[in-house]
């Protein structure tokens, strides 16, 4: 009795050891394929992790800026007449009354501000540009709340102005330069950052003395006032409740006159959110990229596994012949691929996490290094889930099929009898020889052709969407630049993220195409040799092998075009228009040509041996 139990126990360990050995030896023999498998899945998980990792990145600089400037928890702006934009004394009184509202522990202001009410704005001329700006008047001394931190030069002096840093960098304004505001000249004496306003392009902010600010007000552009408040409880909940209580028309503060338009309250949470807009754009691109890469990875991995199954039938037969159960056979497939998926997930997580700082360069409008990107549990779980799902989806069916195979047929390594499609056969006869070969090769492995087409479609989809976004941005900012406007510096960076994703898609699709071509060349060795023996030229056979990849690539590329345009419309909703038709046609045609070029490499390699040799190594 004990002995029986003992052997069964050994059985479990023995099987685990066997699985481990089989997996290890198989991986050793098929290194390139294992690498491609891991790369495909890792691409998707890297981009996914990157998207997640950016979550924690911005909060740090914002917090540091808050600390460095003693930034406000609430920025209150005086209400004004909705038609004239004029701030009445009653409006101003309502603003001042907030200083004593419940929960406020410190305040600064009210400061005069011009150009902030959404109308014309103050006109600024510099050496390079003409643009409209907001001007906030400040005391020369230190404010109690929100004292902008000077990063270059000094704080305000009579006749001098201080420029907000992100605007200064975008508008190319330096210390010592002279600018004019509404015609009046001033010297740039300093550059500073603040947590009270978002940076360019939301605001183009310049600080001057209070007197200057007042003097810049016009009928068209009346004066308004800003107060900076600090609360005892600055948690988001408390801040929101303060805004709900006192702001935006809900309740008058104690002692305020009744006819005033209530002040507009902007909590720090909203400002911080606005500051991280660029990150959200990047994240949007990255999540979309993840989906595309995930789909592409699925197609690539399915092609890989499909190619491997053809080689692996004999191994299956051996396992079964020595007593392996169908379960064991299925396990050998699954364990290997799940292991690789795990490696890919871990690799992708690490890569994405480490790459996050590169994507999140510190912004000009905030000081402080970006925070460490977050490596959360959610991120890990999602990345693992994606990787395992892709691996499982592509491996499950072949694994079950292998498990069900009869031992005899597996040992005989009877190659899967190529499917025959009457219509394709009849069509192929009428085509020139390379197309004849190509179409027949496609007909042999229709599943692989569909997967290849799908991977090309996804790649072209990403390419077209990216080109459309690039073109739309170029057009938009060509227009802006030509009229003397300024370009959002975050845009080129978002474009870089987009380019990186597009390049990843293209590379992965290329690798898949090469692998599919290589698998086809190997499987078609005998047919190629026989065709050569019958008098086909090597060139014809090579072209045929390339055509076998081009034929699925064409509908894939064509399908990718409207899909990509659709993606662009969805993803880039604030952009309009399309790239020139020429670009789109070039993208589709270019893809097909690239596929043809790439796949001619395995074709050329596979055809180098003399015919006699090729024939002799193949069976009947």
């Amino acid at each position: 009795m004990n002995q029986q139990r003992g052997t069964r126990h050994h059985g479990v360990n023995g099987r685990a050891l066997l699985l481990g050995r089989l997996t290890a030896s198989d991986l050793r023999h098929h290194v390139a394929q294992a690498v491609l498998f891991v790369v495909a899945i890792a691409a998707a998980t890297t981009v996914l992790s990157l998207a997640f990792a950016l979550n924690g990145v911005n909060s740090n600089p914002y917090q540091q800026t808050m600390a460095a400037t003693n930034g406000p928890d609430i920025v209150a702006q005086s209400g004004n007449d909705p038609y004239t934009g004029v701030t009445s004394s009653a409006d101003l009184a309502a603003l001042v009354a907030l200083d004593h509202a419940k929960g406020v522990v410190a305040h600064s202001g009210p400061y005069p501000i011009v150009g902030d009410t959404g109308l014309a704005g103050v006109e600024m001329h510099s050496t390079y540009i003409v643009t409209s700006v907001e001007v906030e008047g400040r005391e020369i001394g230190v404010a109690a709340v929100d004292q902008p931190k000077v990063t270059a030069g000094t704080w305000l002096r009579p006749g001098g102005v201080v420029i907000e840093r992100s605007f200064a960098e975008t508008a190319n304004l330096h210390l010592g330069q002279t600018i004019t505001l509404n015609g009046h000249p001033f010297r740039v004496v300093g550059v500073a950052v603040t947590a009270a306003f978002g940076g360019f392009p939301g605001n183009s902010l310049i600080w001057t003395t209070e007197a200057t600010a007042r003097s810049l007000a016009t009928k068209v552009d009346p004066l308004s006032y800003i107060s900076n408040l600090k609360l005892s409880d600055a948690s988001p909940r408390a801040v929101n409740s303060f805004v709900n209580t006192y702001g935006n028309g809900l309740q008058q503060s104690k002692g305020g006159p009744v006819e005033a338009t209530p002040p507009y309250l902007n909590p720090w949470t909203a400002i911080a959110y606005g500051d991280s807009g660029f990150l959200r754009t990047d994240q949007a691109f990255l999540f979309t990229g993840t989906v595309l890469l995930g789909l592409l990875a699925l197609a690539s991995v399915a092609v890989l596994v499909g190619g491997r199954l053809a080689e692996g039938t004999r191994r299956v037969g051996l396992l079964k012949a020595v007593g392996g159960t169908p379960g064991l056979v299925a396990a050998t497939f699954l364990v290997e691929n799940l292991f690789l998926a795990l490696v890919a997930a871990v690799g992708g997580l690490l890569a994405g996490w480490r790459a996050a700082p590169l994507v999140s360069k510190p912004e000009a409008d905030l000081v402080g290094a970006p925070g460490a990107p977050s490596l959360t549990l959610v991120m890990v779980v999602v990345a693992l889930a994606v990787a395992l799902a892709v691996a499982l989806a592509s491996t499950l069916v072949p694994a079950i099929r292998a498990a069900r195979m009869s031992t005899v047929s597996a040992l005989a390594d009877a190659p899967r009898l190529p499917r025959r499609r009457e219509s394709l056969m009849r069509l192929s006869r009428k085509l020139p020889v390379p197309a004849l070969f190509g179409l027949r090769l496609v007909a042999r492995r229709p599943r692989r052709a569909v997967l290849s087409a799908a991977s090309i479609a996804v790649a072209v989809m990403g390419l077209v969407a990216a080109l459309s976004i690039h073109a739309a941005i170029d057009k938009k900012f060509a227009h802006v630049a030509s009229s003397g406007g300024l370009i959002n510096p975050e845009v080129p960076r978002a474009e870089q993220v987009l380019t990186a994703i597009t390049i990843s898609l293209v590379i992965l699709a290329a690798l898949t195409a090469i692998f599919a071509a290589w698998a086809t060349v190997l499987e078609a060795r005998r047919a190629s040799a026989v065709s050569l023996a019958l008098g086909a030229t090597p060139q014809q056979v090579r072209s045929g092998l390339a055509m076998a990849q081009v034929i699925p690539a064409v509908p894939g590329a064509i399908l990718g075009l409207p899909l990509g345009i659709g993606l662009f419309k969805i993803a880039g909703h604030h952009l309009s228009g399309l790239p020139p038709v020429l670009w789109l046609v070039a993208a589709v045609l270019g893809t097909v040509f690239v596929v043809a070029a790439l796949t001619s490499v395995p074709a050329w390699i596979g055809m180098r041996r003399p015919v006699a040799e090729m024939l002799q190594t193949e069976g009947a």
Partner: protein
Amino acid sequence: MNDSPTVLVHAKGLRKDYGSGEGLVRALDAVDLEVSRGEVVAVMGPSGCGKSTLLHLIGGLDRPSAGELSVAGQRVDGLSERALAFFRRNEIGFVFQAFHLMDELTAQENVELPALLAGYSPSEARARATALLEEVDLADRVRHLPSMLSGGQRQRVAIARALVNEPEIVLADEPTGNLDSASAFQVLELLESLRAKGLTLVIVTHDERIATTADRLISMRDGAFVDETHLTGGSSGHLGAFADWERLS
């Protein structure tokens, strides 16, 4: 304009080496051979003696390492791969031991393939294929896939395929090697009928029965010819000798 040459194969000093240095294998060692139009030559020998190599060289499937080779009036040993392909297409019909039919093509699609390669229109190619399949007595199986044909039938399809472009010479490498004796007999009969029509044939075989249908039987060993037997000659009335009538019980 050359009229059709009477010597279809002219090989002089033909040599084929594989590998180099320590691993050099001399598959063929300075072989001379001439085959005339309408002749049937059989080549026999133990495995590894180079008979298949010789056939591959004549058929343009491989290049000699040294020596001269002319087939159907054309110098073959110096041709480019592309030119060799044209040569194979038009002048040679090859029959393999393993048949090498395409599994997913029907009999007639298999047979018409060289014709399509040679540029015949699909209808012309199909017509030729049908005619040849009739000739090899498979007219009722033109739409069968190879998996539905017996070994002998498959080889007959392969022979029809070899003939579709009206080659000058048919090369057969162990055509009955994978067949049982009944199927081998069918193939034998077919080859006999072809030879009666004047086809030039070089057959590599280890089946003495096939070999003795030839006009000339060459034995090879270690890459060289060791014997040549002429088999033509009138019936010598030997057959009666097989009934041993003289012996007393």
